[in-house]
């Protein structure tokens, strides 16, 4: 069987399975129609993306098609999941965007930030403040503004990064994370002080879409679903851009800076500029994640964006695989489900859920995983998977 035929068969199979799932699961005819549309898009994108000619000749197009398939599958899945599950998935997906920024910073330039929770906060508050002053601005514009504000903060803090090496930059970002709550309090007329801000109105889907896809479902469901889908699309776009950046000339230059900055300078890479760009991109991604959290929660509270969030972000991305793209996705899933997994564990072991130990279990487990990962598998879960696959491929070659 030729490669084209094989990929065609895979795409067709995926299409048939999705349609069958849609028909059996969807409670209403309109949902079935939607599901079929989703399945057709996924199958077509998967087919185009997996064509050998496209994969070799147009890697960016192949990545775009892969993104379409994944986003499409997630949007499809969220339609059938419960509201709390959707909310959880969306929280994890927005976190994955922030993680991607940090992963890029380390993977591309060898620097590390312990302040990305504060950059998430910058995006979150930028969204809330803008929405409170200009309630009619379209979401996409609000998100772009928040990203720009995050990038600006990244530039301010990143400027010293032109001359700094790892530990100093880490310490400086830590100081930023510790200072962030005080920054919010200093501008309490804008940020609402300790109580934070509410958004003036919820983000609702356009009418034509409600009529087409989710006729008659309760508002809360549609709004959460709509936001979830927006976040899934945003996550897809963010990952697509990052995958291209990693593979581009700039991305290669950045990896050279990470591995050997002296050599990079010798071949003409502008070190200071590269370091600052990596830092700004990482801050912008964090800001996008925070902005999406604000939309999802319809409010923002300064307590969310304390020092604890910054170290949680670091823990989650290291466990997922710092410096890798898939590690950010894995980290997002870990973040979304860690709380419920730990709650399940506490219930199983019969610990007092209100006790000191149970409430600190999160920190103990994350801290331990962080140390174990760095000691034994510095590329996290993603790196371990990559390593296993490579070993299997080697074994196959040897026969």
């Amino acid at each position, binding site marked *: 069987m030729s490669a084209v035929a094989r990929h065609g068969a895979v795409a067709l199979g995926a299409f048939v399975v999705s349609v069958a799932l849609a028909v059996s699961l969807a409670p209403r005819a309109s949902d079935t129609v939607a599901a079929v549309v989703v399945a057709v898009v996924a199958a077509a994108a998967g087919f185009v993306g997996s064509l050998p000619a496209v994969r070799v000749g147009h890697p960016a197009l192949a990545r775009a098609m892969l993104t379409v398939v994944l986003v499409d599958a997630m949007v499809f899945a969220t339609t059938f999941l419960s509201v709390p599950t959707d909310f959880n998935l969306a929280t994890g997906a927005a976190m994955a965007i922030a993680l991607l920024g940090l992963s890029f910073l380390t993977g591309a330039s*060898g620097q590390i930030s*312990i302040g990305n929770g504060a950059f998430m906060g910058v995006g979150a508050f930028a969204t809330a403040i803008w929405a409170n002053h200009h309630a009619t601005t379209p979401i996409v514009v609000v998100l772009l503004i928040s990203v720009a504000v995050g990038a600006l903060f990244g530039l301010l803090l990143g400027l010293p990064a032109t001359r700094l090496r790892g*530990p100093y930059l880490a310490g400086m970002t*830590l100081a930023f994370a510790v200072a962030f709550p005080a920054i919010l309090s*200093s501008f309490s007329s804008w940020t609402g002080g300790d109580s934070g801000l509410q958004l003036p109105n919820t983000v609702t889907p356009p009418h034509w879409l409600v009529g087409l896809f989710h006729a008659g479902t309760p508002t809360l469901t549609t709004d959460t679903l709509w936001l979830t889908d927006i976040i899934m699309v945003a996550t897809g776009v963010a990952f697509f851009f990052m995958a291209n950046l990693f593979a581009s000339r700039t991305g290669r230059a950045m990896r050279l800076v990470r591995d050997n900055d002296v050599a990079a300078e010798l071949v003409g890479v502008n070190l200071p500029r590269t370091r600052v760009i990596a830092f700004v991109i990482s801050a912008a991604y964090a800001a996008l994640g925070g902005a999406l959290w604000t939309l999802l929660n319809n409010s923002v509270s300064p307590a969310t964006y304390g020092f604890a969030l910054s170290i949680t972000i670091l823990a989650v991305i290291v466990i997922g695989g710092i410096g890798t793209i898939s590690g950010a996705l894995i980290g997002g899933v870990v973040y979304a489900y860690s709380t419920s997994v730990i709650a399940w564990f506490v219930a199983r072991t019969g610990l007092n859920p209100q006790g000191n130990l149970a409430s600190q279990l999160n920190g103990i487990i994350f801290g331990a995983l962080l*140390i174990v990962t760095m*000691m034994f598998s510095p590329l996290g879960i993603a790196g371990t998977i990559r390593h296993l696959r490579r070993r299997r491929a080697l074994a196959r070659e040897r026969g």
Partner: protein
Amino acid sequence: MDSFLTSRIVTDILNGLTNGAIYGLVALSLVLVWRATRVLNFAQGAMPMFATYLGMGLLSYHWPYWVCVGVCLVAAFAIGGVTERVLVRPLYGKPEINPIVVMVGYLIILEAFAAAIWSTTPRSLPAPFSPIDWRLAGQPVGLSPFSLFEVVTALVVMGAIVTLFRFTRLGLQLRASALAPEVSRLLGVRVGRMLTLGWMLSTAVGAVTAILVASNFFTGLTPQLMDGIFAFGFIAAAVGGLDSPVGAVTSGIALGVILQFVGDYLNSNAIILVALVILIVSLMVRPSGLLTRSAARRV
């Protein structure tokens, strides 16, 4: 004359010196570890915090105060040594972000364990001397027996460290191991032991700091006790230069005084903001610290 001694400026300077002594001590402990092993220890606040819980917890069993302080120091020595041997040693020669991440993980785990064992409720520590300001003609002067004790302790600890490094055989071995480990090893210095000793000393300096902070800052002893102080201590160390013990303490004290004025004349939220600006500006002007000679980077 007494109007001058109780004036706002003098009071601010005295209060600032007290805070600055604390920042200087944290900076000093960071410098000790950095010089020995080229690791910026993000658990530098959490390790002494843990030792302080272990030692000062004995107060509830009616152990004498100074014996408890001694237990804290012994616990700090032990924690520092074990940490270097178990967590840090495997990371030498790895990319520089690896030890950073491991120490952040260690910070998380220590704070979580402390909260799991002793809860997050602040535990008040008795101050060994009165924390109430001396008065001149009915006005507080901004200096209490306890804050004087803090400043004196900081100076004594710094003096002891400098004496150790400059004037003793052990200090020479410590410096040699940090600067030229290979040569030192050839000359018979037990380099591994010296690195461990660097971590032990640093954690002990940290424990002194943690006890002072927990008895002074009206916060009591909590698992997160040192988070904020660590940030100021790092800023002091980075401004002074991570390689220079004297620079670290000097810039810590200067930072304490400057920030006291900022807090008094602007507002308390501005303190950390100004500290951050000082850090960014000084790093841009002189990345290796204001108070060090610049050195070529090893490639």
